[in-house]
């Protein structure tokens, strides 16, 4: 099956993008992920992106698989190969095909008169499906596998890997796996008999780059990281694209968090009536000494605003995942953005500042999943983790998850014996008393039976002993301490990642999943002779390194997926003296950022600078 791939002089090997266009609810995702998994198993770097409507059935959906020998995972703007299985979108879809690309479509479709390629092949889907050697009523379920086989045959995807991917998907359901593979084989046979592979410019060849790597989506990684962080209480309200952070827990908690001695659970998950309640519950639990978290997206985060101020001010550790989608309002529920940052940074009224983590890969989703608790409990404050739909809901390859490399830090909690000892030593305890001079007080939690341990928490003004107070000085001192405490976060949060190129005079700053296209854009710019240094912010508050980076460069482009340049705004507030050197490079249209777009903008701008 691979004999001819080296014979054609024009083959593009392991470097192209396949787009599948389907109808929502037709089971195409099994077929499409099969292709992705098979490629991954051949050792070739892949990334998959699902573009889906806010609808359950009947509307168009697209899945793209990018194959990249260089390991680039970002989105690309054009398709090299298209598998068109939705008549309604064909005319629009083909506009995104690169000239000379490969198009496979259902033979029954009426196709546009002119196509940008001569390599367009109609697959007789209906005939092939009807000929399948399986029960009639089951045929439609496996129909999509026919095009998987056709594609595998044309691109040189190993059919054994296809079989493996199918088996993985159907875990133990041998009959289903067999039927699906049978359909794929039929497709492959048809392609071999009807299409001359030599004419196809794209091909894959096994590599070994992905050996030892895993495939996982960011939400699942977040969920697992949270579980390894020892989460004890979860409350949530369903919302795309955050729901499966919690739904994955229902799968993994019974596996990982059953007490070995008793077989009973060490974590509870409660579906709340709304996000107000979800946050209320985790504040209660966090106050009670549990590691508590929730996951939400924009609209839910808006509802959590008042409670996040309470948690900040009453100094209650909680972890909130915000898997961002496009706002304002209900916006585009199934499209990606990085547009909650400004809102989250100071969410809630009054002088509130929040600690924010920004994962840029599945590995960071996992790592920040557990680390968020250590930071929240150490600082006794909410930690918000800002992921996004692109990172959260799509499968990404990454290194295997690493077991947490530091023990759980439960922060400053006093139990009965501690209070007893403090009392004996004549050491004074007050819930908000800064004993250690680091602005972080000691806390006790309900259930502590020592009569000296109790206190009354509140969102109203309070003194160091948690007593109600309207005293101006007390208020001022408390808020000043909270500010000092917030600054302590700098030493605890993940530091920015900096990558430099020789003689770079311009910098790029980004955050979160936009990291993926930025790396690629830097290579493209370097090829054009523009060297760049790169800093990826991974947390708020900013550390000095971020400010230094702005200072060091003539210009710094801040790349992000929103309209207003929210990170740029925060950087401006942080270091107004360097703000004149910042260039906003942001957009939001529902789609993930591409390297092409970034490169083009910077190229134009830099060219203008030199002209």
């Amino acid at each position, binding site marked *: 099956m691979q004999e001819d791939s080296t014979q054609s002089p024009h083959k593009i090997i392991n470097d192209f993008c396949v787009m599948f266009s389907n109808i929502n609810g037709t089971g195409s995702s099994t077929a499409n992920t099969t292709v992705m998994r098979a490629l991954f198993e051949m050792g070739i770097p892949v990334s998959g992106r699902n573009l889906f409507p806010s609808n359950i059935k009947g509307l168009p959906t697209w899945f793209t698989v990018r194959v990249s020998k260089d390991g680039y995972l970002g989105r690309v703007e054009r398709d090299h190969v298209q598998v068109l299985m939705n008549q309604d979108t064909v005319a629009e879809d083909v506009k995104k095909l690169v000239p000379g690309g490969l198009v496979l479509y259902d033979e029954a479709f009426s196709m546009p008169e002119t196509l940008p390629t001569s390599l367009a092949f109609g697959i007789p889907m209906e005939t092939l499906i009807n000929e399948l050697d399986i029960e009639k009523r089951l045929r439609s379920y496996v129909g999509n596998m026919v095009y998987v086989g056709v594609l595998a045959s044309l691109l040189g995807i190993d059919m054994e890997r296809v079989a493996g991917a199918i088996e*993985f998907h159907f875990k133990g359901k041998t009959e289903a796996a067999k039927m699906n593979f049978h359909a794929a084989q039929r497709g492959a046979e048809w392609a071999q008999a009807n299409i001359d592979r030599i004419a196809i410019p794209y091909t894959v060849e096994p590599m070994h780059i992905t050996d030892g790597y*895993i*495939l996982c989506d960011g939400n*699942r990684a977040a969920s*697992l990281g949270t579980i*390894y*962080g*020892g989460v*004890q*209480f979860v*409350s949530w309200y369903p919302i795309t694209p955050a729901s499966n952070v919690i739904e994955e827990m229902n799968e*993994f908690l019974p596996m*990982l968090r059953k*007490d070995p001695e*008793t077989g*009973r*659970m*060490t974590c*509870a998950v*409660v579906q*709340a*009536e709304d996000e*107000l*309640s*979800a946050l*209320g*519950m*985790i*504040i*209660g*639990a*966090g*106050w*009670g*000494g*549990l590691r*508590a978290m929730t996951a939400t997206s924009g609209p839910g985060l808006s509802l959590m605003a*008042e*409670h996040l101020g309470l948690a900040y001010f009453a100094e209650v550790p909680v972890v909130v995942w915000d898997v961002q989608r496009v706002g304002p309002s209900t916006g585009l529920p199934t499209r990606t953005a990085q547009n909650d940052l400004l809102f989250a940074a100071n969410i809630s009224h009054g002088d509130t500042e929040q600690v924010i983590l920004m994962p840029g890969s599945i590995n960071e989703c996992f790592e920040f999943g*557990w680390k968020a608790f250590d930071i929240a409990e150490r600082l006794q404050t909410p930690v918000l983790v800002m992921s996004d739909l692109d990172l959260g809901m799509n499968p990404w390859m990454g290194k*295997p*998850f*690493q*077991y947490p490399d530091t*023990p*759980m830090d439960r922060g400053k909690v006093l139990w009965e014996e501690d209070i007893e000892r403090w009392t004996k030593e004549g050491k004074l305890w007050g819930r908000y008393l800064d004993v250690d001079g680091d602005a972080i007080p000691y806390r006790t*939690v*309900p*259930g*502590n*039976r020592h*009569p000296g341990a*109790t*206190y*009354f*928490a*509140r*969102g109203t003004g309070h003194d160091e002993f948690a*007593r*109600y107070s309207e005293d101006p000085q007390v208020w001022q001192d408390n808020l000043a301490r909270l500010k000092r405490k917030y600054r302590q976060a700098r030493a605890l949060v993940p530091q920015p990642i900096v990558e430099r190129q020789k003689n770079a005079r311009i910098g790029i700053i980004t955050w979160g999943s936009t990291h993926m296209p930025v790396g690629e854009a830097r290579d493209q710019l370097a090829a054009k002779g523009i060297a760049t240094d790169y800093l990826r912010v991974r947390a708020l508050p900013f550390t000095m390194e971020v400010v230094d980076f702005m200072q060091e460069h003539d210009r710094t482009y801040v790349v992000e997926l929103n309209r207003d340049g929210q990170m740029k705004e925060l950087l401006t507030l942080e270091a107004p003296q360097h703000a004149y050197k910042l260039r906003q490079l942001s957009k939001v249209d529902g789609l993930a950022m591409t390297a092409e777009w970034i490169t083009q903008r910077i190229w134009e701008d830099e060219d203008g600078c030199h002209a």
Partner: protein
Amino acid sequence: MPDETNDIGLERADYQGSPNTLCKGCGHNAIIGQIMSACYELNLRPEEIVRYSGIGCSSKAPTYMLKRSFGFNGLHGRMPSLALGAMFADRTLTNIGMSGDGDTASIGIGQFKHICRRNPPMLYIVGNNGVYGLTKGQFSATTEAGVSFKRQGTSRYLPVDICMEALASNASFVARSFAGDPKQLRQLIKAALRHQGISVIDVISPCVSFYNFAKNLHSYEYAREHEIPLHELEFVPTDHQIMIKDFEAGTVRNVKLHDDSIIRLKKLDKEYDPTSRWQAFKVLEEAEEHHQLVTGLIYVDPDIPSTFDRYDLVEEPLNRLGNGRLRPPRESIDQINQMML
């Protein structure tokens, strides 16, 4: 004379709160007074009680009782969620939530109804004065239609009945009482603190500063004149049952709670069965029709599973689990990575 103590050697003073800043004569004072007495008489350790509240005069009230216990005064209308989450931390504690009619029936009606259906073991007591006290006299969801306030005009809408809402939401213990009937209130509170699920007590608790109008339900005068107790009520703790006196057959109904303590309901003029939801709705409906204040134990089902019966959690308090029992073992990570394809 030696100071009087309860069975665990505590004095009444051990159940006191911080200095009270409510108005003199405010119904909420009577409520916290009865809560303190009930806790004293039930021999509860203050450190094993947790107080929760929202925002309002009624929600401030918990500060003025049980100073030696933990407490959390959260957001307006959001006490239920805060309390529910906190209760998961240590399931052996006694939980007292105190709220107002605005806090519960206006801004917080959603959370209120959901905590009822979740049925956690807590006393949920409402100081229902038919007005917003703390913000100085606006209409609440329980203000009767047609009532006029100085700066608000006339209330246009029909009120919400908190007991009816609780019942409809499957609360397992629903009672109504009156701040001017301390004896009944205390018995109800005691029973509520022993009930294994949520116990809602809607207490008519007049606001002397903004709405103690004699012709309206939420006033001392009206309530006194129109109170119709469903029964005479006595709570008998598990260890005191030997003292139960015999009543004439047919005049007393005993309701056994989950811990075997008993609520003795002595019949007054009519037969009333508080274990019938149907009768409960009927009695509330009739009371409203006749503008009467029906008080007593309106409904109880001692056996509905509580929140925690619905989770298979480890026995000991979750907040005392060591790190070793929370973080999965190192070996498990390889197995997890194998699954990631």
